[in-house]
């Protein structure tokens, strides 16, 4: 068995190392982007952020189902972590998108389907966190968070298509098939880097919740049945 700090922070170490390699390849090794020049290099972080935001919220969806079915606090902890990391990634995605939109389209904000969907994703899941903080009973809080997560996750493709039909501006750029091969490697490396960092944050968050629960005395064992029986002998 590995020592505890390595076990706990191994994901972070792998993620940061991959991020360093991927960013070096993206910023130095890879050639400038054909149309946008050096500005296009933001894609090496932007595209992996987009993939991971969706992936982490999908994790949240599966944790939500697990939490509803099993009623285990552990699954609720993981769900809470995944929602928070999903919000973080969606926020990063929005900021990066605006930074990219300015030189590319000349504006910070456009009603591009992907940009808009990520903004809606962000506010939707902030709402879920808000709901979570307004419920006191832990069992009910876990159920309601899971239900709101399932509802919100299901909405993501519907939002995307509604905005896409409503108005479309985004160039088809950000899947590996349309990108030159020298650019694929750093994209993939950074995608895994962010995945590892996300997993690390989710697990750390879940552990923090578990500790808070222990400190509040919520992990007490189920009380034994009384030796007395009321009613009929």
């Amino acid at each position, binding site marked *: 068995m590995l020592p505890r700090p390595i076990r706990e922070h191994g994901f972070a170490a792998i993620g940061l190392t991959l991020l360093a390699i991927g960013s070096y390849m993206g910023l130095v090794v890879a050639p400038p982007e054909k149309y946008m020049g050096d500005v296009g290099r933001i894609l090496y972080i932007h595209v992996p952020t987009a993939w991971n935001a969706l992936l982490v919220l999908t994790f949240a969806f599966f944790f939500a189902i697990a939490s*509803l079915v099993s009623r285990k606090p552990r699954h609720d902890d993981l769900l809470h972590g995944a929602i928070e990391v999903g919000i973080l990634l969606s926020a990063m995605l929005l900021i990066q998108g605006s930074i990219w939109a300015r030189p590319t389209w000349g504006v910070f904000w456009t009603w591009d389907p992907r940009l808009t969907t990520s903004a*809606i994703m962000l*506010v*939707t899941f*902030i*709402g*879920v966190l*808000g*709901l979570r903080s*307004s*419920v*006191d*009973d832990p069992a*009910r809080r876990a*159920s*309601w968070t*899971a*239900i*709101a997560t*399932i*509802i*919100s996750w*299901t*909405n993501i493709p*519907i*939002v995307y*298509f*509604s*905005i896409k*039909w*409503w108005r479309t501006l985004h160039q088809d750029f950000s899947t590996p098939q349309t990108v030159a091969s020298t650019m694929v490697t750093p994209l993939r490396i950074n995608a895994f880097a962010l995945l590892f960092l996300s997993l690390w944050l989710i697990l750390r968050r879940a552990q923090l919740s578990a500790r808070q629960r222990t400190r509040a005395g919520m992990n007490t064992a189920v009380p034994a049945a009384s030796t007395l029986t009321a009613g009929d002998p």
Partner: protein
Amino acid sequence: MTRLFSQSVNVLRKDLLMDWRSRGRALSVLAFAVTTLLLFSFASGADDPNPGAMVGAWLWLALLFASTLALGESFRVETEDGGLEQLRLLPVDPRALFFGKALGNALLLLVLGALILPLCLALFRAEVAGSWPTLALTLALGTAGLAGPGTVYAAMTAQARGKDVMLPLLLFPLVIPVLVAAVKATTLCVGRDPMDQLPSWLSLLAIFDLVYWSLCPLLFGRVLEE
């Protein structure tokens, strides 16, 4: 299946009866929607050259704002003196509770929409160039889209802290597809539809309704559970 249906109908009957008894409160929701429309009209200015272009947007925003009042109210009466807890004590399928309450809310919003639509058309000097039945269909699909997830979230927020803030915070981002599609479809009904885009917007509404009216009843039991 027949039991689910008859229980849903009975929950709906109860809600409609209560809506009718407390029609004073339903009227204040209507008054609220009308006031919102007047405000939109003032905000868009008296000398807007083409006020009719925005008629769909204002109609649906007024309905959306009014829906939070109507949805909140439909669960306020349930939590006022333990009505919801009593319903859970009866051998009633939670899915029937969802269908009954959500249908009640959808009908209420549909009636509200039908009442404010003429006012909206008059206020923004618009005339319906397209077909009235399609417009009615848009209203029905759109209000069902607001009422479905709205019923689930209202059931939660009625029993949570900070209920007045939580319902819009949860519902508004979720129903953006409904809003976009309903506004587009209404605008196309009122104006002209040269590109024949109406069917795609109506089907988007229908898909949203289908997804949430099948998902929400399954989750509703766990919403009510304590």
